[in-house]
């Protein structure tokens, strides 16, 4: 009887536009609402090589020792790995924000205390950390391209903080509806 239920993007309502000094020039950094993905939190039983077991199941984000976030996978889809790997459904728990451009690392350093130098945080690396007071998972996807996973409840606050922190760099924001 019910109509089909529609899904709401985690960053619904996040504003788009150009912000800051470089409004006329090329912005130094782009902040973008990335498409929501299914995700599952995978745990390893003691002694299990989690990364090996999860190979091919999706991109992995480090949450801690023996814990990964599997991007694009539901907990159900990882059910066959039990009992050595157990999974908890986390789809929708985090928004994905893309931060890219020559000023991307500069912008991130305004909230993140981790060392983002390529020798310390190489492409493909990810780690949980704080941006200001918000817990995030940061993943480096390219020399100047990053993915920020932020708890859904904090997504708009982080979006606003990024826009504010990026004003002196010149920033272009693309919310979920933005082009």
């Amino acid at each position, binding site marked *: 009887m*019910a*109509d089909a239920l529609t*899904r*709401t993007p985690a960053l619904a309502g996040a504003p788009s536009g150009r912000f800051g000094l470089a409004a006329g020039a090329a912005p130094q950094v782009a902040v973008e609402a990335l498409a929501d993905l299914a995700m599952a939190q995978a745990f390893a039983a003691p002694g299990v090589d989690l990364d090996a077991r999860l190979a091919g199941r999706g991109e992995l984000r480090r949450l801690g020792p023996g814990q990964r976030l599997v991007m694009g996978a539901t907990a159900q889809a990882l059910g066959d790995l039990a009992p050595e790997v157990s999974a908890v*459904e986390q789809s929708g*728990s985090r928004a994905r924000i893309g931060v890219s451009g020559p000023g991307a690392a500069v912008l991130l350093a305004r909230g993140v*205390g981790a060392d983002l130098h390529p020798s310390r945080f190489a492409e493909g690396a990810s780690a949980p950390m704080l941006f200001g007071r918000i817990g995030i998972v940061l993943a480096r996807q390219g020399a100047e391209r990053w993915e920020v996973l932020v708890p859904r409840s904090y997504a708009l606050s982080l979006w606003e903080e990024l826009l*504010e922190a990026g*004003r002196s760099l010149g920033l272009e924001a693309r919310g979920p509806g933005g082009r």
Partner: protein
Amino acid sequence: MSGRRLPVAARIDRGRPIRFRFDGREHQGFEGDTLASALIASGVGIFGRSFKYHRPRGVLAAGSAEPNALVTVGTGGRQEPNVRATMLEIFDGLEARSQNAWPSRRLDVGALNGLLSPLLGAGFYYKTFMWPPKAWERVYEPLIRRAAGLGRAGIEPDPDRYEKTWAHCDLLVIGAGPAGLSAAVTAARAGARVILADEGAEPGGWLLDDGGDASSALREDLLAELRAAPEVRILPRATVFGWYDDNVFGALERVGKHLPPDPDRPVERLWRIVARSAVLASGAEERPLVFAGNDLPGVAMASGIRRRLVGQAVAPGRRVAVVTNGEAGYSLAAALESREVEVAAILDCSPPSAHDPERYAPARGDWRGGQAEDWRGVARIVRGRPLRAVGMRAVEALEIERRDGSRRRLAVDAVAMSGGWSPNGQLACQRGARPEWSEARQAFLPPIDQPGLHVAGAAAGLVGRAACLADGARQAVAALGEIGLAAAPAFDPAPEDAPPPRALGAQGSGRGKSFVDFQNDVTVDDLARARQEGYGHPELAKRYTTSAMATDQGRMGAVNAAVILAEAQGLAPGAVPLTTQRPFFSPVSFGALAGAARAEAFRPARRSPLHAWSQARGAVFLETGAWLRPAWFPRAGEPDWATAVAREARMVRLAAGLCDVSFLGKIELTGADVPAFLNRVYLNGMAKLPVGRARYGVMLREDGFVMDDGTVARLAEDRWVLTTTTAKAEEVMAHLEFCAQVLWPELDVRLASVSDAWAQMALAGPKAREILGAVVDLDLSDAAMPFMGAAQAPLRGAPGVTARVFRISFSGELAYEIAVPADLGPAVADAIMAAGQGAGICCYGAETLAVLRIEKGHVTHAEIDGRVTAHDLGIGRMVSAKKADFIGRAMLGRPALTAAGRLQLCGLQAVDPAQAFRAGAQVLNAGAAPSLEGAQGHVSSTCWSPHLGRTLGLALVRDARARHGEEVQVWDGLRGETCAARIVPPVHFDPENRRLHG
């Protein structure tokens, strides 16, 4: 007086005039000027009045230690007091004002304090304003505060932006003088990641002040190399103010202080620099000489005069006396004379023991190794000491005493003084190390090589450019070696120039005040008095006299104070130590410390997946912790919030209501040992919870008090979900992770916080069952889904999606909580509202939830306030007697936790329906006088109950369970209100729980 600008080469851009205002009058300077240099150039001598005696003050130094030339900049929200004119680069439109002067800085009434000075010395306030004691707070202190002090902060909100950032490097170099540049180049050549922070507008330090061609060329070369190095970042206008744990340094960058306001550019940026190692090359501060009138406008540090002479082509006066105990005075005299400024005399006050008449004399032609200017040797060299600078508003003459005892009066309009150098080693002493006196260098030296921080160049007491270049390189090699990086020094070892022969205490005995701490108006006499009265220890003298307590933190005066205190006790210089160093090295604005965290952005807000949904329905939001929670949903025509809340509460009990409870903490557990784990963290039995059931649970802290409550549901053989209160979600998660990882690592338990993955809604009221049935595909009959049942069920309208349904109730009604994937939350909420429309559903907020739960006697953290036991809450019977152990059990039996007279949970009802009481009020025995003495307890929660038609509350009252029916008074001491109330059982409404079961 005007026309102090010399027609000689300097680093100002004369093609770019800049107009600004000082005390309302327009002035003109050039790009490259500081406010100090521009005002001196246009003939301004008095910059403001001093802290206590309102003495006219000019410019003493040149850098961030400047104690005298403090001005207020900007107006309105941008008003900033105590800006050092020596650090402020001028810009078009700059507005600055003098401080502490009334009616004007030239004619100031407060200067009468100078005549009263015998009464106003150190300790004066403590001795004079003792009686009556109450008058201190109300009369004396406000009066003194008005008369004393420097600038006043603005009270309007600051419209400017401030930024914070982190940075990381292998080597942080603090100071970009010869030693710093050399250290940075050494590190850059080794491929290290380098941050070079310098306080000045341009890096270079002494290489800029020196003014010689060789220094300029060297500076250009080194900077060019650093700018070309990919891993080097140069931070100009950045003061490193603190050295913290883990080798993190704090630095304040003046990003836009020298520019007109811009909405997108921060005025300041606070850096937190994580450095694997660091070189402190912060140079040295020139020491003032202590003689009468040494604070008169026109008397200034030789190094400050030199910086303005070389950098901005500004002469200190027409005829200058140079008073020095070392090479710096001679060097300045040369620089002055080469620019056609008359030097009346060089007064060399180094002591006889160090007397070497030819020390500088033979060098007249080539006295700095041929690297500096040509000494033309016009000025006479006089051996002796300064007695007194004479003048009313500016120096007019200097009285001196020759070595043979004869006295002379030199007519001059400027006095340059140089009393040797105090290494800027403060940063190296911020983490417990203390500076030590070096007899050889006549200075307090910081420890040179602590792990993580090496001190180089003049900051280590070295003298001379070549020696500093070599030392910077050497210390960089050492610092990098410490972190396993090999480097070769960029400069070879080189000998030092001669250090000043002797640090000097008080000089003049002429009449008048001899200042030691200029900004706080502390004189030699004040230090003498401190010693006389038993406060001779430097830490006590500091607090008694306020010496070294000004914004320069003793950078100008602390060494002189220590030497004078030592002399007063008949001790050698250095026998009295310096006072403790602490951050900040230089003042840091509150704006920079706050960064962007102000107003709405003070802390990040958390929003439920239903936030926008609630907003669209007109919710009024309430901050609870970081969360923004809907408090109520007003409808048109409702006069106030109470009406809306009463209506919502009635509708829930009459039909149905939907409430967002996504705020609850949600933790999912799997693993073979979860039953054992839960049994240990809850006080009640959890091990045998069957699949498809939920159970209320209470956790204790180790000390036996209640930590949190919530529900545990077992959704599958190997899947549990527990809820926590909103307030304690993070704390409980951290507690459980600690238990799993540290206390019982042998248990197979995997914990995940899933708070953000689910939108959770409470659907409560007699119509809840039929409404929910339209949303989930689940048998909701009592048989299939009894009270405290838990199930997973397909969500209608979303193929393949499973909802979690729990039959639990906070409202006391037939109620369910339904959790759906967060992104489906708004759609499901819409579906529920649509399904319930005919039944009369409403949405309700946290205030209504509170009414419903208070009516039912359910507790929250208003009651679980960290001081209550399970027995206090009336749930003592839940404490499992069968379990061998659980967290908090061992401490439960403590006498204090089981004693009679503890506060117990009860209900309170206002006797008169027209009267109300509030949470926080005290419960008194009937007839007792309004007083905290004899208070029986306090009210924890209250509400107006539309169902009982009166004010209800929950309270913690002494032995309450034995006192049901007793009438008491509720006393609100803050508002002076008293209300008669009756103690009742906590459950005010439907005590048999009939409604719960539909």
